[in-house]
């Protein structure tokens, strides 16, 4: 994806976002949105796209994305029930601590997504990461290692492999 087509895509997305938020179809609203979106794209043209991060959206990419989202939603529900049980139990069976796990991803965007996903999975909270390790805090420290080789990690790795 070149920088120009990326800028056009961003412009279309911004305009669509504006129209959805405005919930009206007047000429004035749309012209105002047009001007604002064009100005945003124009002034941020240097910052918008990084060639190493840019990807082509294909069917396989979308499939991996959908699988990732479903795995993530499932783990959000699981994590919430687990934390609710821990909080409401009388003794609070927690054993908090820090643990480093391996970093399976290369691209900064995917690393950020994986970090957010770790925060949403059962009893884990990502604190710091570099290209090789992620520092994770766990409510029960022994369960943190189970993230390596879990369904979530597999979904994220599949996500990265498609992009190559």
């Amino acid at each position: 994806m070149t920088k120009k087509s990326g800028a056009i895509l961003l412009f279309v997305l911004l305009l669509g976002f504006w129209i959805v938020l405005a919930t009206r179809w007047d000429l004035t609203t749309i012209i105002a949105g047009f001007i604002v979106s064009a100005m945003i794209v124009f002034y941020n043209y240097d910052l918008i796209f990084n060639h190493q991060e840019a990807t082509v959206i294909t069917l396989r990419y979308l499939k991996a994305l959908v699988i990732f989202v479903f795995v993530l939603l499932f783990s959000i529900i699981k994590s919430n029930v687990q934390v609710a049980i821990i909080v409401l139990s009388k003794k609070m069976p927690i054993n908090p601590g820090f643990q480093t796990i391996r970093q399976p991803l290369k691209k900064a965007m995917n690393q950020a997504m994986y970090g957010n996903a770790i925060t949403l999975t059962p009893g884990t909270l990502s604190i710091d990461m570099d290209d090789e390790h992620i520092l994770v805090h766990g409510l029960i420290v022994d369960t943190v290692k189970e993230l390596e080789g879990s369904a979530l990690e597999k979904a994220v790795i599949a996500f990265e492999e498609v992009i190559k």
Partner: protein
Amino acid sequence: MQIFLNIMIIILLILGLFFFFVGAIGLIRMPDVFCRMHATTKCDTMGAGLIFMALMIWKGFTFTSLTIFIILIFIWLTNPTAAHYIAKSAYQMLFKNTEKKE
């Protein structure tokens, strides 16, 4: 049909309130910063998600629902990021303090 939808909305709202309640209790009961972040981020994400889902069902297929959906996505993007940042700064403070003591 309307009754069925209403029952579903009420169930979703009650579940969402339950998770917010759990988050608030967790914030008070947990022993340190990191454990508190666990309780608040997870339960708030789920609670907001369920309540917004109830609102979306109530509104049906309209622009308002779409707006609510966008708000939901932004909450789910920003909530873990904020938690990550708080946890990181707390970790750095902890690390510095122990270093000084040694």
